[in-house]
C-alpha cells in the first residue's frame, strides 16, 4: 500500500499533470485525492488550471470526429424535453392555463364515472405544507409542484417536480408511489426528502426514517435512514452518497446547519449553498481553519459575524460577493 502524503507540493502537481511523475508518485497523488472530498476538490482545481492553460496556447486541439446529423437531431429532442419541463414548472401563466385544462378535464370525467378529483399544487417563492387523504404530510419546497388525488383509491400515487419532504403514513397494504421525471420512489411508510434538478438532470432522495425503493428504468436501489442516492439521468447511474453532515440537504426546511470541526472551506461552501450568496476566502491558507458550531434560524450576516469573531477574520461585502479575510491557520 502506498503511504498517503499529507500534502502535495507544487512541483509534484506540475510533474503529475505534465506526465513526468513516476508510477509510484502518480499512485500517491491519486490516493491522496481519494482520501477526502476536500482533496478531491483541490485536485479538480489544479486539473482545471492545467487544462485551462492548455486551451490558450496555439496548439491544435485533438480533432474528434462527429456526426453532425445525429447530433442535431439529439439537440432538437433535448430542447423539446427541456421546454416541456419548463412549461410545467416555471411560468405561472402557463401553469394556470394547464391547471384549468386539467381541472376542466377532470370535472368532465368526474361527471361520467365519479372518479376522485386530482389536485395540483405549484409553489413559487413560498414553501407549502400539504396533508393528503391518507394522513401523509408533505412540505413542498419553492418552485416545486405536486399532483395528487383528493382521495386515494386503491393506490397511493403522486407526481412531484422540484423538491419535497415526505412523511408518509404507514399502510403496508398500499404502497406509496412518487414519480419524478422518469424515476419512481416507492415506500410503505417513512420520511424522506426528494429533489430533482432540471439543469443537472438529477434526482436525489435522502431518507430520514424507514425504507425507500428508488427506481429508474431497470435500476433499483433500496435506501435506509441517513442514506442518500442521486440519479444522474444523462448517464443513467444511481450513485449512493452519505448525506451532508452539516444538514445542508435539509436546510431548506430545518434552517439549521451544524459544523463539527470541518474546514472553513467546507463551511463556506455549505453557507454559499444554503444562503445562495457568493462567499469567498481571500487566500488558500484560510481553508486550514476549522469550525465547530450550530446555527439555527440565523441570518447569514449573523453567522458570518460569529465565524469572523471565532477565527479572527474580517468580513467584507462588495456587491453580491462576500469575502472573508484574515491570517489563516496552520495546516493540521
Amino acid at each position, binding site marked *: 500500500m502506498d503511504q498517503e502524503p499529507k500534502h502535495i507540493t507544487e512541483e509534484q502537481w506540475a510533474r503529475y499533470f505534465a506526465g513526468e511523475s513516476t508510477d509510484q508518485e502518480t499512485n500517491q497523488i491519486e490516493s491522496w485525492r481519494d482520501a477526502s472530498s476536500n482533496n478531491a476538490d483541490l485536485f479538480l482545481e489544479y486539473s482545471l488550471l492545467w487544462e485551462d492553460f492548455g486551451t490558450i*496556447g496555439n*496548439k491544435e486541439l485533438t480533432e474528434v470526429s462527429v456526426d453532425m446529423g445525429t*447530433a442535431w437531431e439529439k439537440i432538437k429532442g433535448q430542447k423539446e424535453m427541456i421546454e416541456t419541463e419548463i412549461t410545467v414548472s416555471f411560468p405561472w401563466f402557463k401553469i394556470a392555463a394547464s391547471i384549468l385544462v386539467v381541472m376542466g378535464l377532470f370535472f368532465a370525467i368526474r361527471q361520467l364515472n365519479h372518479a376522485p378529483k386530482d389536485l395540483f399544487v405549484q409553489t413559487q417563492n413560498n414553501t407549502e405544507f400539504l396533508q393528503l387523504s391518507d394522513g401523509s404530510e408533505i412540505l413542498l419546497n419553492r418552485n416545486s409542484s405536486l399532483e395528487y388525488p383528493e382521495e386515494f383509491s386503491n393506490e397511493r400515487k403522486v407526481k412531484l417536480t422540484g423538491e419535497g419532504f415526505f412523511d408518509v403514513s404507514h399502510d403496508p397494504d398500499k404502497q406509496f408511489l412518487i414519480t419524478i421525471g422518469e424515476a419512481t420512489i416507492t415506500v410503505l411508510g417513512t420520511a424522506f426528502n426528494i429533489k430533482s434538478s432540471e439543469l443537472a438532470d438529477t434526482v436525489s432522495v435522502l431518507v430520514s426514517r424507514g425504507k425507500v425503493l428508488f427506481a429508474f428504468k431497470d435500476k433499483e436501489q433500496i435506501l435506509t435512514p441517513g442514506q442518500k442516492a442521486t440519479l444522474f439521468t444523462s448517464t443513467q447511474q444511481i*450513485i449512493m452518497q452519505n448525506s451532508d453532515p452539516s444538514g445542508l440537504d435539509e436546510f431548506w426546511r430545518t434552517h439549521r446547519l451544524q459544523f463539527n470541526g470541518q474546514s472553513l472551506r467546507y463551511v463556506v461552501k455549505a453557507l454559499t449553498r444554503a444562503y445562495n450568496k457568493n462567499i469567498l476566502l481571500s487566500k488558500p491558507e484560510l481553508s486550514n481553519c476549522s469550525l465547530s458550531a450550530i446555527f439555527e434560524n440565523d441570518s447569514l450576516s449573523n453567522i458570518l459575524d460569529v465565524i469572523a469573531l471565532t477565527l479572527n477574520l474580517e468580513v467584507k461585502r462588495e456587491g453580491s460577493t462576500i469575502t472573508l479575510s484574515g491570517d489563516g491557520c496552520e495546516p493540521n
Partner: protein
Amino acid sequence: MNLTDERVISALFQEHYQSLVSFTFQYVRDKDLSEELVQEVFAKLWADGYKIKIQTSAKSYLLGAVRNAALNYLKHVKVQNTYAQHQMYVASNDEIQDFLEYDELKLKLEHALKQLPEKCREIFELSRFEEKRYKEIANELGISLKTVENQMGKALKILRQELGDYLPILFFLMMR
C-alpha cells in the same frame, strides 16, 4: 441575435459544433461525453434563449458554457463517483450556472501568465503549450532537470495565486 430561432441555433451549430466537441474533449477526455455535453449546451441555449444574454461573442459564450458543463460534470460524476464514501457536499443543485465567457477567461489566464518571471514562463510554456518533456526543456535551455522541476512548481504556484480570484468563483458561484 434571436436565440430561440431555429435558424440561428442551426447556424451556430454548423459553425461551432465540431470545435466545441474538440474543446470539451480536452477537459473530459471522452468523445461521447464531450458530444453529449455540447449537445446539452445547444439544447439549453435554444430552449432558454430568451433569458440568455451574450456578453462578447456567440463563440466565446459557447466555449464558456461547454467548459462550465465539463466542469460540472467532473465535479459531479468523476470526482464524486470515485470518492463516493467521502461525500460531503454533494448536491444536485450546486451546478455552476453563472460562468465566464471564454474571452474573459482567456484574458484572465493571459494576465496570470504575464505575472510569471520570464524564465519561469518560458519553461511553463514549453511544457504546457508545446508539450515538451522536462528533459527536452532542460537540454534546450541548457539547465538542469531539477531547475525545470523547480520552475514548473513555481509557475503553478504563482498562476494559482494569480487566479485565486477566479478559481474559488468557479466553485462558489451559483444561482443568480
